[in-house]
């Protein structure tokens, strides 16, 4: 009887799940990005009161604009990790990870008041990456999934600091990386197969 139970499990990862999950992820990304844009005004206030020296406000404000992309891309790759490693991550946990990525901006603002921007950036991104990948490790109990999420986050944050420092060339690099991102997404949808109504990553 246990075997039948195993065989006729209700499919969880269906196309419908993928659609709903994508909508949910985009929703929390928009909400958190709005909160982060509130931080932008806060940073401006700190600069005016003389607490944020030099042109660090420009850098902080620019890295805040990428908040939406970071949360959306990280959550979507978590969805892929979920499908690939077959470990459920619930809505609350997605929300918590989004909050950690949003808190990154506040930490960055606070740290860059005390030290130069790039040191603050490295410290804060290391903190955030460590937190999120430990959380993923705890959720999936799988070292591969944790390493994968570390790599994804490190690439995202590395790209953002390049974009922040590039100035006028940022648009070119940004749109090229969007192109690569679309290509990667296309690659994963090709690998995503539906077997017995269940999504499988092959």
């Amino acid at each position, binding site marked *: *009887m246990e075997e*039948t*139970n195993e065989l*006729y*499990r*209700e499919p969880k990862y269906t*196309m419908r799940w*993928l*659609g709903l999950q994508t909508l949910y992820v985009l929703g929390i990304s928009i909400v958190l990005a709005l909160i982060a844009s509130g931080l932008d005004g806060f940073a401006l206030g700190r600069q005016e009161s003389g607490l944020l020296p030099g042109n660090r406000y420009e850098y902080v404000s620019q890295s805040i604009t990428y908040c939406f992309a970071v949360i959306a891309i990280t959550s979507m790759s978590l969805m892929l990790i979920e499908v690939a490693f077959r470990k459920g991550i619930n809505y609350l946990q997605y929300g918590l990870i989004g909050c950690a990525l949003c808190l990154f901006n506040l930490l960055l603002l606070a740290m860059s008041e005390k030290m130069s921007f790039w040191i603050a950036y490295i410290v804060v991104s290391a903190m955030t990456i460590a937190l999120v990948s430990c959380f993923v490790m705890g959720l999936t109990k799988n070292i591969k999934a944790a390493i994968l999420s570390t790599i994804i986050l490190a690439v995202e944050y590395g790209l953002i600091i390049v974009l922040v420092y590039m*100035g*006028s*060339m940022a*648009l*070119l690099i*940004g*749109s*090229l990386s*969007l*192109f690569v991102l*679309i*290509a990667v*997404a*296309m690659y994963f*949808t*090709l690998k995503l197969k539906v077997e*017995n*109504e269940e999504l499988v990553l092959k």
Partner: protein
Amino acid sequence: MIPVNTIIPPPLPSEYRKPVSYGKKIFMMGLMCCVLMFGVLAIWLMSYSRETSNKEVAVSIVNQWGKSVYIQGATAKENLDSAEWVRPQKFDCKAEVETKSLHRSIYEAEVFTANVNMSGTFDRDSLRALGDTVVLELGVITKQIVKLNPLKICEQEILWHKSDYYLFAKVKLDELPETIEFSTYFEVRGSEALFIKQIGENSTVTINGEASNPSYNGYSLPIERSLRGSRFSAKWEDSVPDGVIYTDELGFVGTNFLVGVDRYQMVERSMKYSFIIIILTFISVLFVEIMRKQPIPLLNYFLIGAALIIFYSLLLSFVELIPFGFSYLIASAMTVVLITGYMWKILQSRKLGLSIGSVLSLMYLFCYIMLSISTYALLFGSVLLFFSLAAMMYASLKIKNS
């Protein structure tokens, strides 16, 4: 024992496919197009803000090179401070304009250098009324002058003196003939506009050179003008009745030049066709789906639409570095290759992938043609839409209703 909630009907045999409801799918696709248009809007806003900042930088580059050039003169005066002045009898001014663009990282501004040849005649008797020695004055911002030849009066060379806003030279009237001929030559740097005052009783002003989009302006329109490629030429003639004195604003004729570059306008114009490109691509993929009876999930449509939108982002970023034609070519080639490869892999058919790719490249080609021919764009576009509708009708004939 089986728990209640796990009693599920066994999976359906694999040959069975749930029928796809195309009406619902087309509705969802329309909705998706509207969502994707927000992406286009975002890129349009980005292009607009970059255009604004580019204009600001262009103005600052231009101010270092030189502002608008206003040439006023030459006139004769008793001394520099006197308000009374005598105009030349004949005045002839030829300006040869060479435009070039200055770059500062991704920013660009159009400036020019004008070679001005000026000649004319004064009546000696009217100058005598001012005194034995008169001062010839030529109004132009001297900071912008890069090369200056001395004033020539009846084969005699007199050096110009420079003040901030004019050049002047002292002329002794003894031993000069009845009609005093004068001529001079100088090179001046500037931007935006070149205006020359018709100062003589009979004046001829000629401006010619190369510029992308000159517009004639000022007191009167040119009596002769021609435009061949980017080479333009314009001629003004005027004669002043006795006793009429132009005030400072009147009498200037010349051309305005564009300072900024119109590359952002090209990107924004090409964005007008984004909706139709997305719709037509979706329809051709849908036809393939219906004919092959192989369902393609909406997720894949979304990715194709996103790739079509990133085309504009790529175009915008390339156009700041290289000319528009090349950037259009590179961006469209990247997009077409990506979508062709994707369709090839989804449908597992090289033929279908390549045919989608050729439809896309045709669309991009036609869009480029429409961007280059602005006057016939509407006619060409509507004829193209007619033919694409005909092609769709032909393709729908092949769908058998079952």
